[in-house]
């Protein structure tokens, strides 16, 4: 079933540079306001969380993906559908823990950090921490508590950008009727 939408006919293409600049302005302003990398990371995570809880509905409305029954399915959907839909990239899913509750997303490119270089005085800044918040918020709305952090970051000198996701537990309060 092809998903038709009146919106695609009205050219929704936006300049990705405007997006990169907007995100950059956001991070630099936060740095000026808080002057502490750890605090900025926390704020980015919080902002990402607020985005995530709203983005998940948009994702579910547009992608007609059903409920995932295990963490592997979740990982596949995040990497192949969600990242592709919103950032236009497809990270690879690797480094599964033996218990199957932790995995890594390896991003070869990251649209948020085009043209960005981290100066030395911000070595603790996790520039793309917004993404961690988004993933955490979105999964919380579908009853999964996860811990998301950057294990490697190309901006800080590593070869690739690696996001590590760990499943903590299923959120049992406020389950929609019919899920047990």
């Amino acid at each position, binding site marked *: 079933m092809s998903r038709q939408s009146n919106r695609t006919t009205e050219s929704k293409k936006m300049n990705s540079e405007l997006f990169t600049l907007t995100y950059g302005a956001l991070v630099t302003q936060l740095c000026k306001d808080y002057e502490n990398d750890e605090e900025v990371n926390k704020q980015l995570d919080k902002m990402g969380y607020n985005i995530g809880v709203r983005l998940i*509905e948009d994702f579910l409305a547009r992608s007609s993906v059903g409920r995932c029954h295990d963490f592997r399915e979740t990982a596949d959907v995040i990497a192949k559908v969600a990242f592709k839909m919103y950032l236009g990239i497809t990270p690879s899913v690797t480094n599964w823990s033996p218990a199957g509750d932790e995995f890594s997303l390896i991003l070869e490119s990251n649209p948020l950090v085009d043209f960005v270089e981290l100066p030395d005085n911000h070595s603790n800044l996790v520039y793309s921490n917004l993404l961690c918040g988004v993933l955490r918020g979105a999964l919380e709305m579908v009853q999964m508590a996860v811990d998301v952090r950057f294990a490697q970051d190309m901006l800080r000198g590593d070869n690739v950008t690696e996001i590590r996701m760990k499943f903590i537990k299923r959120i049992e309060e406020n389950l929609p009727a019919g899920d047990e």
Partner: protein
Amino acid sequence: MAIFSVYVVNKAGGLIYQYDNYVPRAEVEKTFSFPLDLVLKIHDEKVVVSFGQRDGIRVGHAVLSINGVDVNGKYTAEGKEIIEYLKEATNYPVSIRFGRARLTSNEKLMLASMFHSLFAIGSQLSPESGSSGIEMLETDTFKLHCFQTLTGIKFIVLADPRQAGIDALLRKMYEIYSDFALKNPFYSLEMPIRCELFDQNLKSALEIAEKAGTFGPGP
């Protein structure tokens, strides 16, 4: 073919949006002379016909207006008790409008929460696990369609039994919600939706659904 109303219920069972698109109103206005041959009683803060039926006025119809002025619960607009007023011969002849009483917003809130609970019971009664919950409630005068998202929001549509394409309408409503309610940064989650763009887009989606009868691929 009509869509009567739309309800959106949040995770906790509270009604966050309600819209009446088309409510068939059977109203009758007649002039009466003393004594009134209908028996009236007070029910739920409204004056309703408890016995007596004539000319389109049925048992259960409420008094909507007296002499053209809308009533206020069981009192007239001036504050007199309707039942007492209609016992005085001097007030006749009087023109009374009867009709099916509209649901107040409190009643709608209660009904939405009740449906939320029934929905939960419905899923628990299911012999198989992972039931979708109540998808449709059918009566001879309307069909209630319900769609619960993975995040617990329920979209409920009451429509004419012959109306087709409600499933597609429910999905479209989910998209409209995710666009105009959620992407509005000033809208807080789980709160009543008071976004103009959401109203407008929902209304046009309802119009399209009513006309087309189905949400096929666009031209």
